[in-house]
């Protein structure tokens, strides 16, 4: 299938007090309608900046964006702010990491969903309100009619993230960037929220860029995966292929870092972990050893 958004050589640099920093260092990405493309990597690898840049949300003083991001015959990197504004909310949407602060505490959730419908589709107040209620229903919030009149502080984190998904998908966008949408949530809610994102975007034929550091999430929900490290993509491919036979040391290290409950004994205890010492200290030693091996893997890639 033809990708709806194609980024090529995307590079984002920031001027900081400590000198220039390149957060994203020339990456390529293809987002295909109805498919989930996972961007995986550790904190600070440039995943979020990539997502924000696709929506033009990193623009400003001290930021340089290079490369191209082709969407619908235009380049999002070169597009004017007005052009991007017209695309945001309607064609390009994003779900942010922290649902606790991403919603305006002063407005009802119904109003916050309705706002994007009114702005992007010029809908009447009542039509936008009806869509808001329908969206709340679609994201699985009980009694949506009543919930529309509630304020964010009256919802739990999981429900707020559902609302945020409702906002993002209210105008049936072509591209959705989901930036660690479940990191701030309770483990039991994470799976539900991710399943919701995948189900809704499949039904809307929306291309999803799922930003995560969780390979378990990648394995379960992503069609394709790009492994990102220090602003670069090290490895990419179909999820099953990459996870079954990672080619890159860093990917292998990331996979080794997944905590396992039922793996074979040898996997749980790294060979580098000292075996002496108190029994309860062993778990800590394992995780430390894993971090060390990650760092070593990285080191060999860079030099």
């Amino acid at each position, binding site marked *: 299938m033809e990708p709806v958004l194609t980024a090529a050589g995307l590079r984002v640099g920031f001027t900081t007090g400590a000198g220039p920093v390149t957060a994203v260092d020339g990456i390529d990405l293809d987002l295909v309608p109805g498919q989930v493309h996972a961007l995986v990597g550790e904190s600070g690898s440039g995943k979020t900046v990539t997502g924000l840049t696709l929506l033009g949300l990193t623009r400003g003083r001290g930021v340089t964006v290079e490369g191209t991001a082709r969407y619908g015959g235009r380049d999002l990197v070169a597009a004017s702010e007005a052009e991007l504004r017209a695309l945001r909310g309607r064609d390009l949407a994003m779900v*942010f990491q922290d649902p606790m*602060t991403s919603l*305006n*505490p*002063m407005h009802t959730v119904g109003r916050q969903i309705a*706002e994007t419908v009114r702005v992007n589709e010029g809908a009447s107040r009542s039509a936008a309100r009806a869509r808001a209620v329908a969206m709340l229903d679609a994201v699985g919030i009980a009694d949506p009619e009543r919930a529309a009149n509630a304020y964010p*502080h009256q919802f739990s984190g999981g429900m707020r993230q559902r609302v945020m998904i409702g906002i993002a998908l209210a105008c049936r966008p072509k591209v959705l960037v989901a930036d660690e949408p479940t990191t701030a949530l309770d483990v039991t809610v994470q799976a539900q929220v991710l399943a919701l994102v995948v189900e809704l975007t499949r039904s809307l034929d929306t291309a999803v860029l799922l930003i995560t550091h969780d390979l378990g999430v990648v394995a379960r929900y992503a069609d394709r995966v790009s492994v990102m490290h220090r602003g670069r993509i090290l490895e990419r491919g179909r999820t099953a292929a990459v996870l079954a036979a990672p080619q890159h040391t860093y990917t292998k290290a990331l996979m080794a870092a997944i905590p396992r409950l039922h793996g074979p004994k040898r996997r749980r205890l790294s060979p580098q972990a000292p075996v002496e010492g108190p029994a309860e200290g062993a778990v800590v030693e394992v995780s430390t050893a894993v971090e060390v091996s990650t760092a070593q893997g990285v080191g060999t890639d860079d030099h």
Partner: protein
Amino acid sequence: MSAPTQAPPQAAAATEPGRVAAVWAFLVRTVRSPVPRRLLAVPVVAFVVMLLVFIVAHLLPGDPVTQMTATNSQITPEQVAQLRRELGLSAPLPVQFGDYLKGIFTGNMGTSLYSGRSVTSLLGAALPVTVELALAAWLIATLVGVVTGMIAAHYKDTWVDGLLRTSATVGFSLPWFVVALLGAIVFGVELNWLPILGRMPNSLNYQPTTGFVLIDAVVQNRYELIWPWFQHLVLPATTLAATTAGYLTRVTRSAFLDARTQPFVRTARMKGLTERAIAVKHVLRNSAVPILTMSGLQLGSLLGGAVITESVFSYPGVGSLLVQAAERRDYFLLQGTALTIGLLFTAVNAAVDLAVLAVDPRLRRD
């Protein structure tokens, strides 16, 4: 046969405690919900204000009788004692406090020793004048302060921001009487643009109905009153506003900058809103609580500032009355004006708290 006849009393017995519990639950809920709770605090604070004014008035050296008899060298001690009794000043303090409270509620707060008019009627005439002045000043200050604060935040760290912040600091650093005198000299005397004395030319023969000129002009169908009233209001109101606006500029600026960095602003941007819409619908609303609180507190302090401003401009409000009463040791009038200003402050604070509740849904409890 017996079952149906027995049923109603049983039902009644069952519902009676239920109803009591429901009424009790309603009362508890009402008291606990923020709005009634705030309103219930008003009489408590008002009582404390009354008590404090009473105590301060009795702590002041010299009572009204010494004041009244000071110029009369022929008065006998018996006559002094009689006067004390007549004024109720020989009774024990708690009794005097009771009389004073009763007076407040029945509208009898004593007689002005200087003019011989009742304190209530003097206050009735002066109160609308002060309320008008404070409200006008507050509107100007809030409008100027919020707009300049938003501009300063928008042009953060540019010369515009620097200029606004400096003027704001100069504004709230200047004492009221300095601004008042400057305004009077420049705009009243030198430029001769504005009247500097009084509230209304005597020639217009304004007879108050409510005391609020805008309302009276409509009620009495005398629209010619409005322009001279407005001209007289401009200097005292802008004087008061000048010092307050600067403060609000700074509060608005920092509240605005703080709200602007919140993640929901990024959400609004993600929705495709224009920067202007984001500023008005999302940022301003979220910075409203500190701005509203500060601006409300300023309205309270404007009432205090009105005391000085009114006397500079001979504006016939509660402030002028208070200064006159203090100068002439007009005991009951002093007590009455102090109480009025205190109670106004109480009312304003309650109104501000209610407004904050109305703005911020997080503070309302369900």
